């Protein structure tokens, strides 16, 4: 006789089942995206009241929202350790797909931020690694998309898979943590007049016609050193990014945040922005504002992740047909 305790917390649902040689002794789920920690021990104690001799723990390893997902995994691993039995990790999407009778389809769960975790299945077998994508991208694949609500990672199926498949040992996170290490080899320092030649060249490269000229840079620099802060980032002696903020009458204004194309997506802009915000805080600014060109999608998520919110649009700000988006972040 083999009894499997199956647990999944990869969606809003917390699910627990107890299966003994194919017979379902207990199977219960509770839907609350913020209560996995409270619900799981309660469901497991109910299951153990039915039968407390467990031989194997099966647990959904995601993908799924991280905090809830870890509740199930941490619990399962410790339970197995304390009772000296094995635990087996299962891809949660597989446990969801098991209940679907179609030849080819996509199983997808909510990944928040308007994105979906998903994997593709053919004749009951997963044919892609779990991934995360925008919902609109997923629809382009032209396959039926089966989502949670109608389906969910079924703990009974999960127990079955655990008995026959190789264990998934690590949580399936897919996304990296929302943290950006300081880029290696990049030096951050105050910007000086010696940087102006390089900065003007970068401006032209990045902004074309709307770039600041050397004179504009100079006049920005001539402002009182107390009310403005310009920072530079260099890599192997070359200027690769710069940023400037100006503070007047309670509100600080970010004038520029520019990274050369080759060094984007390395966390340089993030670090510069963080330092500008710190500076504004020390100056006791009440808020920070910035203007961004409409369609400048590359920078927008960065600003939003720091709490900047769009407050208005200014038509023709960067020239005819070029609209500026004004964003603002409140400092407490």
């Amino acid at each position, binding site marked *: 006789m083999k009894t499997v305790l199956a647990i999944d917390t990869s969606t809003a649902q917390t699910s627990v089942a107890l299966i003994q040689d194919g017979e379902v002794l207990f199977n219960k789920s509770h839907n609350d995206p913020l209560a996995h920690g*409270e619900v*799981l021990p309660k469901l497991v104690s109910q299951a153990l009241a039915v039968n407390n001799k467990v031989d194997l723990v099966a647990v959904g390893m995601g993908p799924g929202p*991280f905090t809830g997902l870890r509740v199930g995994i*941490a619990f399962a691993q410790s339970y197995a350790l304390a009772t000296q039995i094995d635990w087996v990790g299962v891809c949660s999407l597989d446990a969801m797909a098991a209940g679907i009778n179609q030849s080819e389809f996509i199983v997808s769960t909510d990944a928040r931020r308007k994105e979906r975790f998903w994997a593709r299945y053919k004749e009951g077998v997963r044919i892609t690694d779990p991934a995360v994508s925008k919902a609109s991208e997923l629809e382009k694949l032209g396959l039926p998309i089966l989502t949670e609500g109608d389906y969910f990672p079924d703990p009974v199926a999960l127990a079955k898979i655990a008995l026959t498949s190789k264990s998934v040992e690590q949580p399936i996170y897919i996304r990296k943590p929302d943290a950006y*290490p*300081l880029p290696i080899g990049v030096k951050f320092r105050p910007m000086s007049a010696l940087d102006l030649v390089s900065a003007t060249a970068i401006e032209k490269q990045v902004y074309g016609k709307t770039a600041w000229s050397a004179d504009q840079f100079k006049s920005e620099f001539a402002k009182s050193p107390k009310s403005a802060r310009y920072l530079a980032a260099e890599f192997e002696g070359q200027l690769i990014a710069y940023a400037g903020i100006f503070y007047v009458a309670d509100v600080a204004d970010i004038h520029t945040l520019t990274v050369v194309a080759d060094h984007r997506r390395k966390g340089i802009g993030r670090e510069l922005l963080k330092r500008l915000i710190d500076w504004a805080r020390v100056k006791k600014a009440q808020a920070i504002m910035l203007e961004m060109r409409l369609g400048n999608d590359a920078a927008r998520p960065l600003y939003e992740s720091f709490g900047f919110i769009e407050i208005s649009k200014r038509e023709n700000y960067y020239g005819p047909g070029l609209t500026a988006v004004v964003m603002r972040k409140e400092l407490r």
Partner: protein
Amino acid sequence: MALVLGIETSCDETAVGIVDGRKLLANVISSSVEEHARFGGVVPEVASRAHLEAMQQVIKQALKDASVTLKDIDAIAVTAGPGLIGALLVGVSSASGLALALDKPLYGVNHLSAHIAVDQLDNDKKITPTIALLVSGGHSSILKVKNLATDVEVMGATIDDAAGEAFDKIARIMGLGFPGGPIIDKQSKDGDLNHVNFPRGLTSAADLDKHQYNFSFSGLKTAVARYIEKTPNYKKADVAASFQEAVVDVLLSKSLAACKESGIDNLVIAGGVAANSRLRELAKQRCEMSKIKLSIPPIALCSDNGAMVAALGSLAITQGVKPSQMGIGADSAASIAQVIW
């Protein structure tokens, strides 16, 4: 005596301790602090991932160090709050898994009280009313402790940054690295603590009216930043020592005032900042002068650890406090009034 296993995951240390009554048997800590150093601060998601990765190994090592098996354990204690929610949940879920599997009681405990409870390990100090100064990267409070397991009251707390956070920020401004506490402590040893007279927050007569036992470190931080801006060739050691003196001075004046007002002549200093050498030195001097009995846990038990959680669990058992219900979850903003869940 009860054998208690304690789990702590409220911030960046994955820690498990085992105590037998008041006797410390094991204290294992796996820290993700090096991973956070690259970010200049603790990143919640990085910490939570590290907790899950380290947890099983840390439990096994603690059992090995204590020469006991899980079957011998009488109760499980775990930090249920306050702390980072995702980090806390890894500990609480692991503890629930252990308690259910072993069919043993579970005690969800308050992280802040646990910092004080650790002072009762490996000694036979009487458990009496005390004033506690709790200072770390996450908290700066003065507590009136009548009974550590049941009756703890906040007299004052920081209204902005925690003391440890102020150390981190100043270290960052001076380009010294992370975490700031130990680095500034070390720098200060070669510095003149009277070099700059930095402000002591909330100590003016007007402030004392409203904030007798509260702290504020943001003004101090601004003052240091301004000083550095104005003084390009400043000496790091002098600024570090002067900054540290301003923090330590305020912490101690207010703690001793709290002792005096409440007629309690015991002071416990706990939390990560209690490892600061200047705080320890000045506390000793001033407590001797004021005839107050000072107690500071050994440095190894000041920062977050599992032994303190086990110690508080053990104390709760001794005092007959009821165990927690299954499904306590975690409370990131738990108040000090909730000692045991």
